[in-house]
């Protein structure tokens, strides 16, 4: 009798442990997807970081969809279908969006080239004059 109780208890702990592990994985996946989705009623916050009611519901929906077996891509596609590409905090690097990725790099390179030329000119000139 005692042996049966110990076995049952151990099984119970094992099941609880497995549930906690599944929950932890689901929580981590929910956080990953939610951190990529923009909160529609905030300024530059993801639904993972926003305390707003709408963001919390959206996060709950992300969790439900992942728990039901949808992949992160399918969950993202659902929100894009409802809110448009705008809902992604990092827009897809294609088409007009490429500007967001390329323009800063181009400006840094252009600025660096300008500074390099400016510095070279102003360090070379006195030496030539001497």
């Amino acid at each position, binding site marked *: 009798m005692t042996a049966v109780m110990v076995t049952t208890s151990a099984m119970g702990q094992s099941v609880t442990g497995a549930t906690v592990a599944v929950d932890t994985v689901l929580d981590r996946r929910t956080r990953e997807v939610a951190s990529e989705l923009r909160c*529609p*009623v905030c300024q530059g916050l993801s639904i993972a970081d926003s305390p707003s*009611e709408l963001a919390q*519901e959206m996060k709950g*929906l992300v969790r439900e969809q992942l728990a039901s077996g949808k992949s992160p891509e399918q969950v993202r596609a659902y929100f894009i*279908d*409802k*809110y*448009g590409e705008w809902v992604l905090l990092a827009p897809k690097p294609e088409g007009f969006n490429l500007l967001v990725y390329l323009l800063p790099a181009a400006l840094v390179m252009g600025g660096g080239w300008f500074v390099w030329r400016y510095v070279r000119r102003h360090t070379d000139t006195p030496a030539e004059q001497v």
Partner: protein
Amino acid sequence: MDDAIPATGLNWRRASIAGAVALPIIALLAFGMTRDPGEITSPLPGKMAPDFALEVFAQGEPGQERMVGDTVRLSEMRGQVVVLNFWGSWCLECRREHQALTNVASEYATKGVKFFGVLYNDQPSTALRWIQEMGGQSYPSVNDPRTRTSIDYGIYGAPETFFIAKNGVVAYKHIGALTEAIMIQKLDSLIAAPSS
């Protein structure tokens, strides 16, 4: 001193490079100024309106009324023009458009147009007090307790109103307070359009 200043007074090569760099940036910024950063363009117009099953909490007036507790399903209204107005008692713009919605809903009820309010981020008890305070609402309102239907419609504020054609496709989404003129224009064209 004399050799430092070019004869023309302007280095055209430098000016053209500066212009080529600056003009696209200025054009991009100017384009950004023409857009409202608070407005999200909805991808829904032209697509099938998401179906829902929501419970009535405010019945509306005779001619448009639905019993409190009834479940309203969009799929049951195929063949009719449907107007969904997402609102909340906390929303000031909803107060501004309320009378226009009530008037147009009454006028178009006989033409087969169904109006429904969808409560967004609010409690039915508070919303009922608001309706009473505003002198009534001619059309029924349904509750969206976990904002799931609101998310399905890509709602991010209130009021937002969807005009759904007879074939179930979202024809138009309006953000902000509606006027009677806008509603009449949209509804007349949707009523005149064929069902398929």
